[in-house]
């Protein structure tokens, strides 16, 4: 089971718990958005000194940017876009239901939001990023559907609901995964054209997503994961564990960010910084997952705590010790944030907050 996905896709979690360890003060979102808009406008017209002053305030105070509002607004936009895309299909009803069942099952949509934030970072619009944001979520969902099947992880439940193959049968689940994978690429191609994204950028996004969905990412990670499950307890090295997590999880986080930056028109240097940021973010998410499995309560996690330990799976706390794993979390967070240094502070705010949110979440 993909724990990072499980946490990402937590549905209906109480907000107070989500942000309990993350010091964000609430502000009226409309007024805040207006303020940010004015601030950015003034930023473009003002001299260097004034710009610096405003930027410093926006970042350091922690009150000018409302991450909670940003996250929920973007997640809603992605959900609506996914819903609309799936509604538009003319296909057998059981297939449509199966696809919608898993894609629209809720979740925080952190990967799609990352794609949008990366696009905006390099000066693109959210609208330009929505097709790749949806595609990332479809690819992710397809991999979960196939991962849960009896011949793979054989999970009967996902986020407390029957898995797709339990609800619809193995054949339909297999085909729904295939259909979502195809739809992801169709959506990047047609959706990007519809959003006015230049064709060469759309193609680079397809290359990025095509790699991560296959031998360069998820499929490779799943193969390595299955191979490691048969290995004697304790024989999986840190390098091997990292390979599994990089390919199975972090690569898709990376592809989400890179695709967003690419369709946003980012230069090569910008895209590579985004890639490194997302690489560290993806790994950070996985280390946090493993730590929470040891330290969290079942109630917080929405599943049985200690399951991975009980199953004898290789985890970071097991290989590095809990203290070592926590230190690694700090290191990854610092590395991710370092990639944002020197860039426009207002544009990096969503990504900085996302990294901190990832590091300090409780489930």
């Amino acid at each position, binding site marked *: 089971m993909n724990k990072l996905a499980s946490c990402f896709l937590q549905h209906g979690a109480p907000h107070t718990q989500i942000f309990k360890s993350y010091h964000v003060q609430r502000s009226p979102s409309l007024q805040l958005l207006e303020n940010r808009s004015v601030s950015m406008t003034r930023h473009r017209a003002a001299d260097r000194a004034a710009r610096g002053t405003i930027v410093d305030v926006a970042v350091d105070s922690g009150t000018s940017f409302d991450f909670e509002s940003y996250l929920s607004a973007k997640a809603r936009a992605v959900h609506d876009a996914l819903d609309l895309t799936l509604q538009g299909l003319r296909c057998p009803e059981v297939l449509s239901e199966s696809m919608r069942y898993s894609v629209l099952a809720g979740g925080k949509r952190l990967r799609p939001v990352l794609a949008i934030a990366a696009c905006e970072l390099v000066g693109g619009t959210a609208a330009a990023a929505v097709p790749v944001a949806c595609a990332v979520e479809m690819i992710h969902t397809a991999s979960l559907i196939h991962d849960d099947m009896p011949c793979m992880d054989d999970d009967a439940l996902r986020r407390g609901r029957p898995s797709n193959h339990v609800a619809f049968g193995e*054949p*339909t689940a297999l085909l729904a995964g295939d259909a979502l994978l*195809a739809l992801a690429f169709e959506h990047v191609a047609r959706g990007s054209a519809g959003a006015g994204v230049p*064709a060469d950028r759309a*193609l680079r996004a*397809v290359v990025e997503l*095509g790699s991560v969905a296959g031998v360069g990412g998820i499929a490779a990670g799943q*193969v390595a994961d299955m191979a490691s499950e048969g290995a004697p307890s304790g024989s999986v090295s840190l390098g091997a564990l990292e390979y599994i997590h990089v390919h199975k999880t972090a690569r898709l986080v990376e592809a989400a960010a890179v695709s967003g930056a690419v369709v946003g028109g980012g230069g090569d240097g910008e895209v590579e910084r985004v890639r490194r940021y997302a690489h560290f973010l993806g790994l950070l998410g996985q280390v946090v997952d493993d730590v929470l499995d040891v330290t969290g309560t079942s109630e917080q996690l929405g599943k049985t705590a200690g399951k991975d330990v009980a199953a004898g799976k290789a985890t970071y706390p097991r290989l590095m010790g809990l203290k070592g794993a926590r230190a690694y979390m700090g290191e990854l967070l610092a590395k991710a944030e370092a990639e944002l240094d020197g860039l426009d502070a207002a544009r990096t705010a969503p990504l900085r907050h996302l990294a901190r949110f990832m590091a300090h979440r409780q489930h």
Partner: protein
Amino acid sequence: MAMAFHFHPLVASRVHFSPLPFAAATGAPSPSSSVAIAAHYHHHGRRRFSAIVATATTTEFNFKAYMEERAVAVNRALDAAIPAGGLPAALHDAMRYALLAGGKRVRPALCLAACAVVGGPESWAMPAAAAVEMVHTMSLVHDDLPCMDDDDLRRGKPTCHVVYGEPIAVLAGDALLSLSFHHMASVGSYPPAVDPEKHPARVVRAIGELARCIGSEGLVAGQVVDLEMTGTSQTVPLELLEYIHLHKTAALLEASVVIGAIIGGGTDEQIEALRKYARSIGLLFQVVDDILDVTKSSEELGKTAGKDLASDKTTYPKLLGLAKSREFAEKLVSDATEQLACFDEEKAAPLLHLANYIAHRQN
């Protein structure tokens, strides 16, 4: 979209397509065969048939050699697309096993021929030709799984899941699907001489077409309906049988032709004419399959009789009778041929011969 076909006595009398083999299709052309062909078609006084004769006799088009050359070129491209020795080994090996297991490469040939008929160099369409074969292979790998068709043999060889196990077969299918888009979208896949201004938009459009023909409005939809009808004892109505075949088989054949034409720089009118050609030969493929099932023994067909899917139990001969099925096949060839009337005769020769090959094959 189901095709409605209504029989009319006059239609039957107007369409007398004799299954005479083309001289080229049988190897070295012989004077008597050419004369016989000419005599046969001249009797009907049809311009396009005269064109066919002219093509066959003046250029001595060698269909067998054409197909062999394309298969070799395509196999070379496929071999290069998934280099031996890639990691993880099990995944790469499974992908190569399935993809390089032989086959006539009809879909790639259609793609290359469509590119040529609109005036593009075949090399422009080779990445797309490879992509359609990857997609075709992916559908076979997933179709053969125990929860689907549960086949242990394909083309006389053990199927992918038998050799590598179900988990790897699921992942290999996913990876092949992702690779098809990655390969088509990669700049490095194409020769330097493609039109730099127009090429990216053409590839984006082609990717949209390919993805649509694979997913919930294409190949997957056909598979879902085919499986849905499996459990019932009732005969499948003609409209539904056509739905299954148009989606399960014709959709990918259509995509093969259409994306070849798009990348070759065809006009919208040319692309639509070729789309109609492709739909006719896609349906033709299945009608002939059903006719062969009735008229040939299991041994000759290289597969086992008495399969389980709805489209195996309900056939055109069962619904229409053998004679009417043959007439329908002739009608489809005529329809396909008609769509090629606006193209240069010499360039259209491969597509004409492919249609006739599909109509008159014996296995």
